[in-house]
C-alpha cells in the first residue's frame, strides 16, 4: 500500500520536474517567436506580457527588405548544402570501408577520428586563415565549404560507422554469390539499408554547417557573402538595437534547425557514443 503510494508520489515528482525542465528548455524558442511579431512599442513597454498586444510582420519585412537577410540565408543554404553533399559522399565510403574491409585497423581509424574532435577550432582557425589567404579563398563560399569539411567529415564518418555496423554481412555475401560485384553490392544492397541513417547524418551535418559561427566570422568579411550567423551578429553592432528585427531574423535562422532536428533526433540518440563502445 505505502509502496504504491510512494510510487505514485514519485511519478508526480517526476512529471513536475519534467514540466519545469521542458518550460525552461522551450521558453527561449517560444520567446523569440512571440517577440518577432510584437510591435516595437510593445516590446519595450510590456516586457513581461507573453502574448503580443498587436500582431505585426513589420520586423520580418524590415529584415528581408531593408537588411537583405535573404541573401545571407542564400549563402548559408549554398554553403551548408555543398558541405553536406561532399561530406556525406566522402564519409559514407569511408565508414563502409572501415566497417567492412579494415577489421583490425578500423578501430584505430575510428579512434583517430575521435582524437580530431579534440583539436580546438580556434587552433585550426589560424592555419585556415593563412592557407585560405594564400590560395585566394578568403571571403569565398568555396573556402568556407572546404573548412567546414574539417568538422563535418570526422563526425559523419563517426555516426555512419554506427549505421553501417547494423548491416549484416550475410546479405552482402549472398548478393556477391549471386554475381553482384562490390560496387553493385554497395549501391544496391547496402546503401538502401542504411539510407535512413545516411539521411539523418546528412541533416545533422547540414544543421551544423548552417549553425557554424567561428570560421565564418574569420574567413568572410564582405556583407554580401556573410552567412546567417555572422549577419545576425552584425545586427547587434547596429547603433540602435532593434530587438524586434533581431528576433525576426533569429526566427528565420533557428526554425529550420529546430524543425529538421526534430525529424532526426531519434537517430542521433546514442549516435555520439555508439561508434566507440561496440
Amino acid at each position, binding site marked *: 500500500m505505502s509502496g504504491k503510494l510512494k510510487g505514485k508520489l514519485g511519478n508526480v515528482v517526476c512529471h513536475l520536474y519534467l514540466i519545469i525542465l521542458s518550460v525552461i528548455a522551450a521558453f527561449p524558442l517560444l520567446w523569440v517567436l512571440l517577440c518577432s511579431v510584437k510591435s516595437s512599442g510593445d516590446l519595450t513597454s510590456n516586457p513581461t506580457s507573453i502574448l503580443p498586444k498587436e500582431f505585426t510582420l513589420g520586423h520580418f519585412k524590415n529584415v528581408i527588405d531593408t537588411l537583405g537577410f535573404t541573401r545571407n540565408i542564400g549563402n548559408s543554404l549554398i554553403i551548408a548544402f555543398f558541405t553536406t553533399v561532399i561530406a556525406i559522399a566522402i564519409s559514407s565510403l569511408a565508414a563502409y570501408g572501415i566497417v567492412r574491409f579494415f577489421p583490425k585497423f578500423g578501430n584505430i581509424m575510428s579512434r583517430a577520428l575521435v582524437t580530431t574532435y579534440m583539436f580546438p577550432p580556434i587552433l585550426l582557425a589560424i592555419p585556415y586563415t593563412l592557407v585560405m589567404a594564400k590560395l585566394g579563398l578568403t571571403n569565398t563560399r568555396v573556402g568556407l565549404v572546404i573548412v567546414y569539411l574539417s568538422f563535418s567529415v570526422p563526425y559523419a564518418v563517426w555516426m555512419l560507422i554506427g549505421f553501417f555496423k547494423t548491416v549484416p554481412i550475410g546479405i552482402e555475401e549472398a548478393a556477391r554469390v549471386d554475381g553482384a560485384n562490390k560496387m553493385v553490392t554497395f549501391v544496391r544492397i547496402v546503401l538502401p539499408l542504411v539510407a535512413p541513417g545516411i539521411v539523418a547524418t546528412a541533416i545533422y551535418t547540414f544543421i551544423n554547417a548552417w549553425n557554424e559561427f567561428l570560421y565564418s566570422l574569420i574567413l568572410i568579411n564582405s556583407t554580401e557573402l556573410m552567412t546567417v550567423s555572422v549577419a545576425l551578429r552584425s545586427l547587434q553592432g547596429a547603433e540602435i538595437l532593434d530587438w524586434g528585427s*533581431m528576433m525576426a531574423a533569429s526566427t528565420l535562422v533557428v526554425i529550420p534547425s529546430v524543425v529538421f532536428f526534430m525529424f532526426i533526433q531519434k537517430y542521433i540518440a546514442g549516435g555520439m557514443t555508439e561508434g566507440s563502445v561496440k
Partner: protein
Amino acid sequence: MKTKKIDYGRWLLVLPALIVVGTLLVYPIFSSLYYSLTTKHLIKATYDFIGFDNYIKVLTDPDFFKAFLTSILWTVASLLGQIVVGFTAALALNRVNHLKGVYRILMIIPWAFPSIVIALAWKWILNGVSGFLPNLLYEMGVASELPQFLSDSSLVFGTLIFINIWFGAPMIMVNVLSALQTIPQDQYEAAQIDGASKLQQFMYITVPHIKVVVGLLVVLRTIWVFNNFDIIYLITGGGPANATTTVPIYAYNMGWGTKLLGRSSAVTVLLLAFLLIVCFIYFKIIGKWEKEDK
C-alpha cells in the same frame, strides 16, 4: 592477384576521408606548432623565427593564467550542471509512462540552437532594461531593482554557466536515456525479489551499465566546453573587464585583436596540450572500467 585488387580498393574507399583529415586536421596542427615559434603577424608579410619566446611571453602573462582558471571553472561548473540536469532528466523520463515523447521533444530544443541565436535569445530575455526575466523578478518583488545578469560582474559568470547547462544538458539526457534503455529489465525484477532497495538497484545495476557511456560523454563534453568560443564570445565578448575571458577568447583576441598570430598559435598549442593530458587521464579511467566489465 585477387587479394591485391581488394586491398587496393579498400584504401580507395577511405582515401578521400584520409585526405580531408590529413590536410584539414593534421597539417594545421603542425603548421600551428611552427608558427608558434615565429613572430607571424595577421597582416605583415614577413616574420622571424624566435624559438620559445612566444611560449615564455604567454606563460608569464597573468592574463593568460586568469583565462586558464576561468576556462577550468567554466568547464567544471558547466559540465557538473549538465550532467546533474541531464542525468536526472533521463531518469525521470525513463520512469514516467505518459507524455514521454512530448517532454523529450521539448527538452531537446536547445540542442538545435545556433550559437548566435542562443546568444540573442538569452541576451533579450535577460536584457537589463526590457528583458523578460529581470522585469518578472522585479514585478514579483524578488529583486528590488532590475538585475543586470550580463553586465553585473558578480552575476555574469553564473548566468553564462546557466546558459551553457541549458544548451548542453539535452545531449547528456538523450544519451543517458538510450543507455538506460539497454539495461535488461529482468535484472531489476530479480533484484526486487532479492529485496534490494531502489538505491541499491541504482548503484549496482544502473550505474555499472551506463558508466562507460557516461564516461565517454563526459570526455566529449569536456573537450567541447573547454574549446567553446561562440557562446561566451557572442554573449559577453569576454567581458565585463575580462571576467569571462576563457582561453579560446584570449587566443582570439591575441590573434585577431592584437594581430599576433604567432603568439596566438602558442596559446592554442598549449590549449591542445592541456586537452590531450586531460583526455589521456579520462581514457585511462574508462579503459579500466571497460576491463572491469569484462
